[in-house]
């Protein structure tokens, strides 16, 4: 018996050392969120280029950053959110994108990209777009108006929540007053602060997770939430809808980037280009249920998908939306306002 255990365990130890050896085929190491890409698309890529795609997973942008910053290597493509891609680029952790290697870049929605954090696509290629908006229960909220002014409604006071995120909440108030999300103008910020303090009297709390559960179970009627979360809530409870307020809101996106330490850059480019092909971008959109700023692929999507305001907001609202930018030294202005808001009675 003991001998058996010994052999079994030495076999596993040997298996570890063998499995780390590489095989003849080329391998692409992708660092991604779980369930964020259609497995069928990956299989197709493997067959087309006779290679192996190995998926690895991280759970937050910050963890990804900490790990790579400490020197972890071996990944060929990463999927950070836009703001994190920018930080990584500024710290020279990711490569510049060679546009000549990506013939499918032309499929992307140029006017849309021009608004993003990396308008020239110098270091990133967009994958999916997300928004912050309002999800509400159709049965409980009468005379709904797609506007941040809902937070002034007394009849549903105490049944609403805002995110616990200073940029998103102050940003919503800025938009409500007709300003930009990334403003550093003191007078504008002051006005936004007064608006949030007024809203604070009508909301139950600043929160995300409890709010989602509360909306699903009927405790809350209206919450500020990201569209990805809202889509999951809608699948659960058909009384829930998601809208982008007509005054505008924030957009963010997840990007493909190639880290400096990538070993197989050629294959990484091929993979990005492959994902930009209309057919594959379509399959991914259908799988993750987000919008990809890929015009050629959007043409292939069903009408139902493209007309869903939680996925593809109308043009005139989109015009009023801003990407959240890192404000550097001015970030302190927002945190000071947030302190005042939190302590206001």
């Amino acid at each position, binding site marked *: 018996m003991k001998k058996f*255990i010994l052999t079994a*365990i030495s076999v*596993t*130890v040997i*298996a*570890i*050392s063998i*499995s*780390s050896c590489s095989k003849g085929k080329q*391998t692409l*190491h992708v660092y991604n*969120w*779980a*369930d*964020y890409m259609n*497995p069928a698309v990956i299989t197709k890529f493997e067959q087309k280029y006779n290679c192996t795609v*190995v*998926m*690895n*997973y*991280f*759970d937050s942008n910050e*963890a990804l950053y*900490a*790990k790579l910053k*400490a*020197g*972890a*290597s*071996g*990944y060929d493509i990463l999927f950070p959110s836009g703001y994190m891609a920018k930080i990584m680029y500024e710290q020279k952790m990711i490569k510049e994108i060679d546009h000549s290697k990506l013939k499918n870049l032309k499929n992307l929605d140029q006017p849309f990209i021009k608004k993003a954090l990396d308008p020239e696509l110098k270091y990133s290629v967009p994958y999916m777009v997300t928004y912050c908006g309002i999800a509400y229960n159709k049965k409980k909220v009468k005379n709904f108006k797609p506007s941040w002014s809902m937070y002034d409604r007394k009849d549903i006071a105490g049944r609403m929540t805002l995110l616990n995120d200073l940029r998103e909440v102050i940003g919503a108030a800025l938009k409500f007053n007709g300003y930009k999300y990334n403003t550093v103008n003191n007078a504008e910020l002051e006005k936004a602060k007064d608006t949030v303090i007024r809203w604070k009297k009508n909301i139950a709390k600043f929160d995300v997770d409890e709010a*989602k*559960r509360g909306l*699903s*179970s009927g405790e809350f009627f209206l919450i500020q939430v990201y569209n*990805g979360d809202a889509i*999951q809530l809608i*699948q*659960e409870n058909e009384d829930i809808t998601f809208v982008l307020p007509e005054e505008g809101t924030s957009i963010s996106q997840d990007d493909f980037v190639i880290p400096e330490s990538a070993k197989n850059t050629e294959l990484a480019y091929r993979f990005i280009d492959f994902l930009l092909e209309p057919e594959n971008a379509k399959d991914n959109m259908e799988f*993750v249920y987000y919008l990809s700023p890929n015009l050629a692929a959007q043409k292939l999507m069903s009408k139902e998908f493209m007309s869903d305001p939680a996925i593809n907001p109308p043009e005139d609202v989109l015009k009023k939306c801003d990407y959240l930018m890192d404000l550097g030294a001015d970030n302190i202005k927002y945190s000071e306002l947030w302190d005042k808001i939190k302590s206001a009675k």
Partner: protein
Amino acid sequence: MKKSRFPLYITIAILVFFYLPIIIVFAQSFNASRFGGEWKGFTFHWYYKLFSDRNIWHALTNTLIIALSSTFVSLVLGTIAAFALYKYKTKLQIGHNILIYFPLVIPDILMGISLLLFFVSLKVGLGLFTIFLAHVTFSMSYVAMVVLGRFQDFDYSIMEAALDLGATWRTAVRKIMIPYLMPGIAAGGLLAFTLSLDDFVITFFVSGPDSTTLPLYIYSMMRHGSPSVINALSVLMVAFTFIIVFISKKLLEAKE
């Protein structure tokens, strides 16, 4: 005098505290609702999804390989360390004792990032092997502590008696010391196995390409995935553990 019922209530409360979550996970794994906010009907859908997801199985294989191998190695090293701590009371052993204690009190995140920096500076490729080393590092301490506890009651003169009567060192260890320490070794092994099975923070930092373990995968599913699949997997793992425990108990009874 009437016996106090207080201990009974405490026992019930603790049992509920331990087992209710498992029962809820069991029920939720058959719930058609994705968030489990309310009951949406009975389904095998999550089990179906679980069996068709190659990523989960790959992650599970990695997890089991690491858990088994790191448990075995930390059992050997931990037991030997405990013996040294028990037998020799030199200055060196005080230092040894502190070293063994260290991984128990050091925060996971610190250990994870320092191991990562260490591996990177040594240019060791990150992967299953580095996870294995990291897990041995912390499991070993737990094993050593548990086995050391067992050693406290061990009367070393029995060993000496055996040696005086002509037993070789090897026979004495095998016939006297190991059987005596077995409960401690078994407990240490179980502890090391479970610690390795669900470690997230340290594993995240020292994992490399193609070494995703189950906890890493589950955390990453928070953003886009469906936790219900994990409920189904948990049920299977709990069932599997129960079967193993049941069989080993039967085997032990048969021996006696």
